[in-house]
């Protein structure tokens, strides 16, 4: 093996030769090889790892990484109408300030005595989500909205002792893939069709399919394709009649204007918190939530940690700790509920900051503003000859489907044309929903001005000409 270049490294205090020698002497070892005596020769790597030469200084490292990342073009530079599970919203500066603080950023699994702060911050996150959802139990975030849906359905199966679940056919393909893999061993999934005109769940098909095997009916509000499920109360009533639970995937940012699902009959509500003050991070900004009423039958089925409040030995202090810890895999390994581990706590703290900044008025205003911009964009685009806004008569939240089949162009060609005009179009749905033709799912945001929406419409007009 060639001689090693081992400069003193700033991340490794004891890489300094004097320190290393002192340490070796203290433990009575001649060299570090002694510590590896248990590793058989056959397992030893007899060469240096073949890795790029290191960039030891910050200046070199920054130059290298900038060189890579500067090849990206971000939504800060280019007008974007992408959504489909990851959303561009203005992230308040205070959200970034708090989640960049080293005390939160670099902490992990401390107990409530040295990490009182994270326990309180996450308890407050749970509590503010609970106000949004009008439910009493919300978990410390799990991985993401996909996992939240998958776990909610497993919870429903455990609670009811039943083995099938009904999902809407208007669910996104990626989420369905995750949920399907997660439920595969013992829970059967069936898809309930949606109405061609409204995009809403087909109630007749649902009622026909409901029977004593069904653990849960799951649907999303707003749906993956943007529609607001206006008959949510009828869906949950049908589920209840069959003894099934109603599980709703909700967009938390919509809950300033849309009714909390518990009020139309949901038993478990789940979703993603990326929209609550977390950047898109190329899809790396997700966190999941699960909520229920304060019923031990439900609480004891959560796999996640649940931070609760309790008195301390001193009057006037709030103490925090784990509620019903004995249900978790930390306590019981495979006998616990699914598993718990490192997930998305920092995004939970961030979402708490976001909700505190927004307050009731902010949540109302953003919901109203998003729906106004969405409807405005839908109407503008609907006026372009050859374009059809699908499900146009149904209320929408931020996303809507446009069918380009009438233009003779593919959805991919439309998006390419938009990109040439420096616009990121929407998600191409032609592979995911072939029955919708050459369709694109567009998404609006509060960062879009009227002029931005006008620019999209004008660009579309040019592209389809």
């Amino acid at each position, binding site marked *: 093996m060639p001689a090693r270049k081992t400069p003193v490294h700033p991340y490794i205090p004891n890489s300094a030769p004097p320190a290393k020698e002192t340490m070796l002497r203290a433990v009575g070892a001649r060299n570090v090889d002694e510590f590896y005596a248990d590793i058989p020769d056959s397992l030893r790597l007899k060469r240096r790892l073949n890795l790029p030469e290191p960039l030891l200084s910050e200046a070199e490292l920054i130059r290298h990484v900038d060189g890579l990342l500067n090849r*990206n073009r971000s939504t800060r530079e280019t007008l974007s109408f992408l959504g489909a599970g990851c959303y561009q919203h203005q992230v308040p500066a205070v959200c970034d300030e708090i989640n960049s603080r080293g*005390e939160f950023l670099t902490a992990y699994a401390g107990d409530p005595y040295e990490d009182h702060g994270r326990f309180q*911050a996450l308890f407050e996150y749970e509590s503010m989500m609970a106000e949004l959802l009008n439910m009493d139990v919300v978990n410390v975030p799990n991985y993401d909205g996909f996992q939240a849906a998958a776990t909610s359905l497993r919870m429903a199966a455990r609670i009811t002792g039943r083995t099938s679940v009904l999902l809407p056919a208007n669910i996104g393909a990626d989420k369905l893939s995750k949920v399907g*893999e997660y439920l595969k061993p013992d829970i059967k999934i069936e898809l309930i069709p949606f109405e061609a005109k409204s995009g809403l769940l087909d109630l007749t098909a649902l009622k026909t399919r409901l029977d004593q095997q069904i653990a849960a009916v799951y649907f999303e509000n707003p749906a993956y394709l943007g529609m607001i499920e206006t008959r949510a109360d009828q869906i949950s009533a049908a589920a209840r009649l069959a003894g099934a639970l109603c599980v709703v995937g909700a967009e938390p940012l919509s809950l300033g204007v849309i009714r909390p699902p518990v009020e139309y009959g949901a038993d478990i509500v789940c979703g993603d918190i990326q929209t609550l003050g977390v950047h898109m991070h190329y899809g790396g900004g997700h966190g999941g939530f699960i909520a229920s009423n304060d019923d031990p039958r439900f609480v004891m089925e959560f796999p996640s940690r649940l931070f609760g409040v309790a008195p301390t030995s*001193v009057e006037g202090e709030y103490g925090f700790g784990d509620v019903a810890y004995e249900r978790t895999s930390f306590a019981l390994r495979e006998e616990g509920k699914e598993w718990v581990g490192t997930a998305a706590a920092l995004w939970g703290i961030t979402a708490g900051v976001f909700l505190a900044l927004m307050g009731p008025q902010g949540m109302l205003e953003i919901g109203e503003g998003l729906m106004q911009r969405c409807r405005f964009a839908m109407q503008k685009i609907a006026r372009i000859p050859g374009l059809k806004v699908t499900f146009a008569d149904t209320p929408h939240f931020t996303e809507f489907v446009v069918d380009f089949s009438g233009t003779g162009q593919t959805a991919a060609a439309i998006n390419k044309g938009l990109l040439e005009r420096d616009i990121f179009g929407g998600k191409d749905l032609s592979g995911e929903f072939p029955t919708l033709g050459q369709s694109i799912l567009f998404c609006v945001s509060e960062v879009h001005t009227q002029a931005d929406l006008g620019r999209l419409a004008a660009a579309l007009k040019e592209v389809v000409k």
Partner: protein
Amino acid sequence: MKPIAPKPMPRRFHQARWDEPVIFELSQPGQRGVLLPPVEAGIEEEVGNPARALPDSVRRREPPALPEMSQVHVLRHYARLSQENLGVDLNIDVGQGTCTMKYSPKVNDQLARTPKLTELHPLQDESTVQGILEVMYRMEGMLKEISGMDRVTLQPGAGSAAIYANVCMIRAYHASRGQEKQRDEVITTIFSHPSNGAAAKVAGYRVITLYPDADGYPDLEALKAAVSDRTAALLITNPEDTGIFNPRIEEFVRVVHAAGGLCAYDQANANGLLGITRAREAGFDACHFNLHKTFSTPHGCGGPAAGACGVTEALAPFLPVPTVEFNGRTYSLDYDRPQSIGKTRPFYGVAPNILRAYAWIMSLGADGLREAAEVAVLNNNYLLKKVLEIRGVSAPYAKGKRRIEQVRYSWEQLTRETGIHSEEIETRAADFGMHYWTSHHPYVVPEPMTLEPTESYSKADLDEYAAMLKQISDEAYTNPQIIKTAPHNSTVHRTQHEPFDNPDEWAVTWRAYLRKTGRKKG
């Protein structure tokens, strides 16, 4: 002027105590924390206010009872809470064994904060995200080299998610050979992370857990008795959470392979092995890394993390979609993988942490990684020597042997002689500004403590941590009351735990607390 006395060891710490109310108590009617861009008149004129036109079934009646606060008050509240928290930046974080609490370099955080990453949408045209795709492709290449495996996915969101992804790939592999029903058992060991058993159970497997032999090694005879044509896989950590490297690991893999099972290597404890030994040479079919452990990304109070699964060619067809590919000119996402297990999470992984981990490896290189591993192991063996000088503590198993990167200690003697338990030491440690953790359940090692000093700590750090443990041991023998009434210097005093397990009293949210205690809102 008289000279000022030098600092004692351990230091006289006191945690921040802001006596901070719960955020709802800070609400002031009408205050705003942030304003939104107005909806232009032109939009309003054309569409009115569709939210108000929603049918009753889905229209919100009452606004959510969120706090109403000015911006500076939100900031100050959370800044205070952050001060009531310790992280690697503040404490000598060697007390969370198995979790590899190393320094997370600040420059990597800076790099991850560029809008060129934070403001990327995952569905952008590939031509506009070539930079991040190249980072992911290069990161896969480096982890392939570090593990010896043929392909690596960066999609799982954390370590347990990576374990689960590996189990799913193993299940798909057996299914592709018509053996899914027959192979319904997974074997793991008690000193492997609890998620190995738990994730396998979710994937539909019966879980067999092996206990250590008298020397603390995973029991080879027990493995031979457990394997059969029902064995789907062995999921094993090495070194296990005891810090003892299993020298017969190749034999373990051979035994499982001979029975037709696969082997997945939980590399949560890889930090002492970088550049020393790899999953490939030991014959594993799959492995996983925790980028937030071994590769330095910050732990974020419990995530976001990042996981990576490495697999051999035989398992590569089952990797989650998409993979990142390179044709010599451009990078692309490949969804055309018909045998894939599909998605393990939305999109492609925790990109900011993938970037941080990439930057960490780039700032160390091959020699730096090996240096990190060796110093982590040196630090651990130094701390082992210091800790064993303390009354009441022992390091069960492998007597007189060196350890890799961590040690599971036992305070059994101290408990027997003083009645003080490991959990009480944990609480008392907070009085010194240090984190301490017992271990995962069940406590196979009685009164456990698991210390992992990584490469990030100096001799003085380790001396201070040992001095803290020695002081607590001394207190146990001379003044146990001070431990039993701890914490004394923390943000709060001892919490009453009974309500957390009583459904009539537990309160996971403020509204539940108000309801159950009869306290009024506001």
